[in-house]
């Protein structure tokens, strides 16, 4: 399996506060990685650096063979290949769900409107929300909105999907419908990096687990090893608190 994302000695500061410390990470195609850790540990910052919603100051980030830095000319092209699902959904409230899904394919990928709509309906069906296509985001429940956001990202046919705490803003009973959609996606072979506290989901789909604390990767291990015999004390403590 080939590498699709590579981070080498990545450092990132917010003013004086160091958010990421010497991060080294390789992600292979079709690999599923779940990142967990206490709040403020840099998990979100890490995945936001991968599509440069945050800028890193030091080290290398290589996505699909292209390095991401301030000199990257075709940043938009790289971003188009990296889908992202946010904690707060971030659907476009002025557009219907269908338009949310077709907008980027039409304007960024120059896809004909008909094809874009067909693609959108296919992806909306995939997350089981096709019947809501004509509604506006404000008319949907949180779970439905998050599934729409997932469909929107999938419409760009990305090679990699990043999930930034996709279920943290949802009511408990809606978490499952979103996780189910993510499990389906994982089974279809998508490369995924997921920041989440849903350990059930992690056990089911993740190939590798990463535990972060204070900007550092404390532990990276196969999922089974991670849960059964974590090496570091910090990981043990964390797991004992959330499991």
């Amino acid at each position: 399996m080939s590498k699709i994302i590579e981070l080498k000695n990545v450092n990132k500061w917010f003013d004086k506060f160091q958010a990421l410390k010497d991060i080294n990470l390789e992600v292979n195609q079709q690999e599923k990685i779940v990142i967990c850790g206490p709040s403020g540990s840099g998990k979100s910052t890490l995945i936001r650096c991968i599509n440069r919603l945050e800028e890193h100051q030091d080290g290398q980030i290589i996505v699909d063979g292209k390095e991401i830095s301030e000199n990257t000319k075709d940043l938009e092209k790289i971003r188009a290949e990296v889908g992202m699902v946010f904690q707060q959904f971030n659907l476009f409230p002025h557009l219907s769900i269908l338009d949310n899904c077709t907008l980027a394919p039409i304007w960024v990928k120059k896809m004909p409107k008909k094809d874009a709509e067909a693609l959108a309906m296919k992806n909306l069906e995939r997350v089981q929300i096709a019947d809501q296509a004509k509604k506006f985001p404000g008319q949907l429940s949180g779970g439905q909105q998050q599934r729409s956001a997932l469909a929107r990202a999938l419409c760009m046919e990305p090679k990699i999907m990043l999930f930034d705490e996709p279920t943290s803003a949802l009511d408990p009973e809606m978490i499952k419908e979103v996780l189910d959609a993510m499990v389906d996606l994982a089974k279809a072979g998508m490369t995924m990096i997921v920041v989440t506290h849903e350990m059930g989901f992690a056990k089911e789909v993740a190939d590798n687990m990463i535990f972060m604390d204070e900007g550092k990767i404390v532990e990276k291990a196969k999922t089974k090893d991670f849960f059964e015999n974590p090496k570091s004390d910090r990981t043990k403590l964390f797991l004992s608190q959330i499991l």
Partner: protein
Amino acid sequence: MNLSILKADKKNLNTFITIGSVLIFIGLIDIILSSFLSTNITAFLPDKISYLTPLLFGLFGLYLIRIEFSGNKLLDKVNTNFNSSNFNALLTLLVIFALIKYIPPLLNWFVFDANFAGNTKEDCTGDGACWVFVKVWLNRFVYGLYPDTEQWRINTAFLTLFLLVGASFFVPQRYKKYIIIFLLFVYPIIGLKLISGGDFGLKYVETGAWGGLSLTFIVSAFALILCFPIGTILALGRRSKLPAIRYTSIGFIELWRGVPLITVLFMSAVMFPMFLPDGTYVDKLIRVLIAITLFEAAYMAEVVRGGLQALPKGQYEAAKSLGMGYWKMHFLIILPQALKLVIPGIANTFLALVKDTPLIFVVGLLELAGMVNLAKTNPKWLGMAMEGYVFAGLVFWVICYVMSRYSQNLEKKLKTER
């Protein structure tokens, strides 16, 4: 005194209502008689008390009928809306008395004592408004000094404009954008050419002769159409990451916001030509249009910036994560939402712009208010300032009210949130 005996209960409810109503009625009669027939039914009382009697009667009456859950729907409604406390009762009475006292004289001036017939000032009796003045000057108020024989050109231009605007509301969605593009980019040139003339066998009419309401419309419309995109670009510029663009925008906005419009207009008329090479001449109206446009664009920029700042960061991030660049992100995602948010502010700026147009008198251009100003100094029509300004005020009010209603409708139509 123990006021509890003055509170109604089930048994004497009707007595209270009757006595209260009678007292209020006496108060009203008192004020009506004294304002229309100059008779004072309470003249036997000392002056100051007599002056206050209607209020006292009314207040006591309202106090008596202030009965909670009386069972009478009308009475309950009156009590909750106008008579919920002594203070509210007082306000209600004062408003009613003020209406009785001042509305009839106003109506008399406007309609009943006003003069409509005739053609000269002498046809007016002087009791009420002399609308003859407005009637005689109406042509000038609308067309300014534009030659009478050529006025069909202004009529045609505006009629076409209204028809096109009307059509844009009723044609199917897919033709709509062509009409709007035509209206914004092509029609202004055609319209201006039709009104100014000079080619196609049309007599040239210099802009100095343009005036009246039609000039108000021309100046407002051009400034509205132009200041909006410029303001939006400035707002984006002010938030740009590139220092050169950011500081240019800030400088521009602060410069124009810092000077009064009247100064800007004056400079455009007097100082601007000095910077031009000899022999070049830019028409006065064009200079004024540019000045007003840039002035209002600076205000527009700040209104739009308010909208941009109100959008959550997540919208920018979502757009970026889908691979959109700066312009796609702003035109597809950010601006549609930001502009919708600030429709009230945009409407505010537009209304201010329309009402600022009379200031172009400083460069000698006379739109509606300017023409009124000119007409009232005509020796044959001295003393008609009131009628003229009331007329101009009403016309401006109608224009602004229509714009305001339209902006409210737009807001409702574009609302997609729950």
